[in-house]
């Protein structure tokens, strides 16, 4: 991808990613918030593509579309007002949170601009997906297996935590009984 094409993809994508990220917490509708988060993280995949990481960009789009759709389902299940029609306010410490977030954002931006980062652009092309495949089957196999095992343990742990009448539900029932 040429520098001009990269810039034409990168700047609008970053702008939309940040604006949709802000609107996740500005909308009153939970379903809309989930879809905005999907847009923000999905467009981040486009930013990855602009940064010559085709494999990671496509993976990000696939992962986030699946994950955020599940998140929207959970929101609709657990929100008292998923459509945002009752005008509920679901924020607290708005001013302090915003001040701290702005301070952190400015701090990170200043550090990013003022630090002398190592720059060593070798080529414009993306790393060969084939090379990534060989990397998976080679010395990074252990890392990949570790990620797979982590997901497996999270699935088992998640089911155990959410199970009706599980360990924590019993503690809750006992607490209610004492009261």
């Amino acid at each position, binding site marked *: 991808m040429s520098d001009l094409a990269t810039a034409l993809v990168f700047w609008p994508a970053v702008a939309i990613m940040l604006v949709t990220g802000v609107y996740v917490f500005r909308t009153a509708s939970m379903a809309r918030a989930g879809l905005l988060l999907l847009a923000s993280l999905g467009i981040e995949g486009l930013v990855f593509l602009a940064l010559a*990481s085709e494999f990671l960009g496509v993976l990000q789009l696939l992962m986030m579309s699946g*994950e955020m759709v599940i998140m929207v389902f959970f929101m609709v299940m657990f929100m008292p007002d998923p459509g945002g029609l009752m005008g509920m306010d679901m924020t607290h410490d708005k001013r302090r*949170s915003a001040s701290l977030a*702005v301070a952190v954002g400015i701090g990170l931006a200043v550090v990013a601009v003022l630090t002398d*980062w190592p720059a060593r652009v070798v080529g414009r092309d993306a*790393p060969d997906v084939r090379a990534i495949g060989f990397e998976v089957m080679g010395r990074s196999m252990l890392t990949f297996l570790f990620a797979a095992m982590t997901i497996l343990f999270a699935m088992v742990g998640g089911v155990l935590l*959410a199970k009706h009448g599980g360990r924590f539900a019993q503690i809750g029932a006992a607490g209610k009984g004492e009261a």
Partner: protein
Amino acid sequence: MISLPVVLVAAGLMFAIGLYGVLGQTNTIMVMMGVELMLGAAMLNVVGFLRYSWPDATSGAFFVLILMTLMAVEAAVGFALVISAFRHSRTAEIDDMHELKG
């Protein structure tokens, strides 16, 4: 022109937006969304470093894969905790979960 600091500034702003969500929202799922944005910012950082500092390092892509795994794990365990808490106290609001005892 796009350079490493530009990418890092974008990632920093995204992290700040996520932080605002984590600190300012009262609903557990909205807080999880903030965490997702913060992890997304971390991924953007790694991809920026991969592009502008070590473009020939294929193993660097695995840092991003680990972060994606972390996002999936955070969502799975987070939703399980929300279900457990909702079953117990009939709410997913963080302000109502101020006690660790039952």
